[in-house]
């Protein structure tokens, strides 16, 4: 119980001109925990995720991360080389659109291997063996290792992106609508895979989704965002079974099953 959080976000602001896309957001993520961020499109979920990762510089606030390599680091002030190293090794980012997270002109195996090499791996045979193992783990036929992701279905591309992110054994994975834009049956298979991987690897995950069913299935905790602010936070069953804020009540009442 005394174990410190892996990530502590405090007073985070992201402004685009007059617009406060992220407005004074604070929360913690503990090791092995899945935190879902829910809210309608435009509520600031993706911007929050991208600013935590460092794709966007926050206007104000702090993001404290407890790194394996560097100890406690303030991400908003971290120098670029170290930020990149962390992003390649201890964190992962799963984009909603797999094409944003993959190199479409490289083979499936190269996509997985590239991240290993970026993290320092050099032995070609070992890299290929790990790529094969990870393709298998995300249920992609290993004989497709030399094929281009362009020839994969949307669901396969998303699974390949997940393999690419997880191959370096990250501790913290940020996921932006990982099941969005897929057919329901493909979504179901991906969700099952994510559920298994998260449990087996003990990952910490910040999961952005507008799908409360996905949040119910994967997350221990939920933050509800509206117009850049967190309007409600709590255990998944607290927020979904007894939402307090008018906006949370609206979200919950708008879905059939969650």
């Amino acid at each position: 119980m005394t174990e410190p959080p892996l990530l502590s976000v405090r007073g985070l602001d992201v402004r685009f001109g007059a617009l406060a896309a992220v407005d004074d957001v604070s929360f913690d993520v503990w090791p092995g925990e899945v935190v879902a961020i829910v809210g309608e499109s435009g509520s600031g979920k993706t911007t929050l995720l991208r600013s935590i990762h460092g794709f966007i510089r926050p206007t104000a606030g702090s993001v404290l991360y407890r790194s394996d390599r560097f100890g406690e680091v303030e991400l908003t002030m971290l120098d670029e080389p170290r930020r990149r190293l962390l992003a390649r090794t201890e964190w992962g980012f799963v984009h909603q659109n797999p094409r944003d997270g993959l190199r479409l002109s490289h083979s499936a195996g190269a996509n997985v291997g590239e991240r290993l090499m970026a993290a320092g791996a050099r032995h070609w045979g070992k890299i290929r063996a790990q790529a094969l193992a990870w393709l298998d783990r995300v249920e992609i036929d290993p004989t497709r290792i030399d094929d281009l992701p362009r020839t994969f279905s949307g669901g396969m591309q998303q699974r390949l992106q997940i393999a690419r992110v997880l191959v370096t054994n990250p501790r913290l994975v940020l996921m932006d609508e990982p099941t969005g834009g897929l057919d329901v049956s493909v979504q179901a298979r991906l969700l099952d895979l994510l559920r298994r991987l998260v449990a087996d690897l003990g990952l910490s995950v910040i999961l952005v989704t507008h799908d409360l069913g996905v949040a119910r299935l994967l997350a221990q905790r939920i933050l509800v965002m509206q117009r850049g602010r967190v309007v409600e936070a709590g255990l998944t069953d607290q927020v979904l079974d007894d939402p307090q804020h008018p906006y949370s009540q609206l979200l919950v009442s708008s879905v059939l099953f969650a």
Partner: protein
Amino acid sequence: MSEPAVLVEGLAKEFTLHLQGGVRLPVLRDLSLSVFPGECLALVGPSGTGKSTLLRALYGTYVPQAGRIHVLHRGRMVDLASADPRQILSIRRDTIGHVSQFLRVIPRVPARAIVAEPLIHRGESRQAALRAADAMLARLNLPERLWHLPPATFSGGEQQRVNLARGFIVHYPILLIDEPTASLDPVNADIALSLIEDARKRNAAIVGIFHDPAVRLRVATREFALAPLAEAA
């Protein structure tokens, strides 16, 4: 008697329905009770008086507006009403079990894995947990051909038996049970009640809702009556 396992003081819960013009529904007001190890407390009262609401508050799902819910967790009293989310998860893992009225199925996960999950969360090996799950499902008479299937298509009684198996697989010191026998035939209802009796004999503190007076007579050691609140002025 020793220390209570559950001690509720001055509990108040009301719901505000923001989508209905902010209507307020007071359900529990200034409610106090205690439950000791080895007791089975039956919540009684007309429909809508808040029996299920109280049970959900005792599990930390419904956060009350006022009052304290002390539970004996790893040798000390912890207030669920003010505990942080991670503390509540730890209490649910080790101390409080909840058998809800209906099984919330996890899509595509087979019955035996659903039953084994609480043990795995507590660090039990997958294999041992699945073996224990099979034993529970066998005790509850669930046909073996169903063990490897996801319960989404099961009958009400079959789902309820999966639910009971999941709730009783860990020997929780505190158990919350909502209508355990509602969808069971007499033979299976009898097995469910024997699970409750066994839990009580090993000194669990149990709070339950049992609409059937015969069931209550058999398992409950004490009753707690909830009455409708007078209309708020």
